[in-house]
């Protein structure tokens, strides 16, 4: 009762101040929105607030990670044996494939040397664990447990065992945010593995679908074509699988065909991703090769994603 009367007393003096406060905060929000949308000046602010959100993420992740720990520690002998034999078989298979790969790699290096082109350098990778995937349907953001302390930088490519997952957009100190290739704002320069046709894969907000919006109706693209990174955007090293074309609709009256592709990486199922340190990026001589190819393509050079 007492609180109620106190409220009524203060209401008349409080109401105008409230509107003023809202006005100030709204103005502040708009300034933040504009500055944040235009440039990256607010990275430091984001980092600072991100550090306060970090404990929340650890709390959210705790049940999942403790359940995994529990599962790993209580697995039966039988399960472990099965798992071991499965992994052994897988290892044999990959080894067999790798033998051929070594031969191919040396052949490739030899041919490149004959052509006087720069050799491809192997990329360095590091495994990072995913702490959370953003629930927001407009932004497909994931948080990984590696930050700038581990050498993560903005724009770094992230892959999983099957293909490209996304790229780092904010490298924090202990954790980093990455954007998935399925994010509606993300565009990724790709090429068709079969014939080298270059285009752009744009995210749709759906984990299972990418769009290729800039392909003319007569483009040589078929169901089942594998799309790999072309490396032209600068963010992703070339040659990593991105998606497999799963529908091609040619529209006779329109300028472009409707082509969609299914990402090769399982974007909503991964727990671990690999961060790539591409060694080829620092090599300035490498830039001459794609530049010569560029003239053949009418496509504009896209950025590797939004800021």
């Amino acid at each position, binding site marked *: 009762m007492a*609180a109620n009367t106190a*409220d*009524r007393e*203060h*209401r008349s003096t*409080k*109401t105008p101040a*409230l*509107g003023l*406060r*809202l006005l100030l*905060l*709204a103005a*502040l*929000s*708009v*300034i*933040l*929105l504009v*500055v*944040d*949308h235009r440039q990256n000046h*607010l990275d430091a*602010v*984001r980092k600072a*607030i*991100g550090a*306060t*959100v970090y404990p*929340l*993420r650890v*709390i*959210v992740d705790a049940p*999942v990670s403790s359940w995994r720990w529990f599962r790993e520690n209580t697995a039966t002998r039988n399960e472990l044996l099965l798992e071991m034999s499965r992994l052994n078989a897988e290892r044999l298979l990959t080894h067999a494939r790798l033998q051929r790969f070594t031969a191919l790699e040396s052949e490739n290096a030899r041919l490149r040397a004959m052509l006087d082109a720069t050799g491809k350098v192997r990329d360095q990778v590091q495994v990072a664990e995913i702490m*959370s*995937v*953003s*629930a*927001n*349907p*407009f*932004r497909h*953001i994931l948080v990984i447990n590696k930050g700038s302390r581990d050498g993560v930088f903005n724009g770094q490519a992230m892959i999983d065992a099957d293909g490209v997952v996304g790229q780092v*957009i*904010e490298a924090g100190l202990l954790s980093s*945010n990455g*954007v998935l290739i399925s994010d*509606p*704002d993300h565009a990724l320069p790709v090429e068709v593995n079969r014939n080298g046709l270059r285009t752009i894969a744009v995210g749709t*907000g759906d*984990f299972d679908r990418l769009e290729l919006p800039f392909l003319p109706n007569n483009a040589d693209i078929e169901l089942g074509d594998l799309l790999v990174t072309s490396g032209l955007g600068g963010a992703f090293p070339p040659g990593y699988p991105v998606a497999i074309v799963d529908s091609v609709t040619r529209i006779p009256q329109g300028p472009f065909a409707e082509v969609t592709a299914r990402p090769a990486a399982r974007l*909503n199922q991964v727990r671990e991703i690999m961060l790539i340190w591409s060694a080829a990026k620092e090599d300035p001589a490498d830039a001459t090769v794609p530049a010569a190819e560029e003239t053949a393509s009418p496509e504009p050079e896209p950025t590797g994603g939004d800021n």
Partner: protein
Amino acid sequence: MNASRRLPVLICIIVALTLAIVPMPDWASPYRPDWAVLTLIYWSMSMPRTYSVGTAWITGIVLDVAHGTLLGQHALALAFVTYLTTKFHLQLRVFPMSQMTATVLALLAIYQFILFWINGVAGTYADAVAYWGPLISGTLLWPLVAHFFSGIRYRNTRTS
């Protein structure tokens, strides 16, 4: 007395923020309620002098960072919804539950509209279901949420 009154509400807001980033199965995630809005509507309605636009704005900024959206987007939407709630808190308090739920539906719609509007200006588009999902689930959950919070509030005022 003041600190012991504030602590439970602070915990409620932190829990709401945690629920906002907790992973959910694919089919359910479009229907994730906006826990932060529901929490702030309740507390700014029942304790408008302690919790109003300022608290909402700070919560919104943290939500922006957690979701990776533009800084200020959730902050602006939350501050505006909280402003409306604070302004009409005396009317809201005496509403029967059905009428209050309808008002909450309207407030949630305003919240989603501001988010939609900023997304549109910034050039981010998504399916319409992404805007309707939280609206439906939030409205359906409101009676439960209000009941839960009033339990906390009653215990709180009685002990202090």
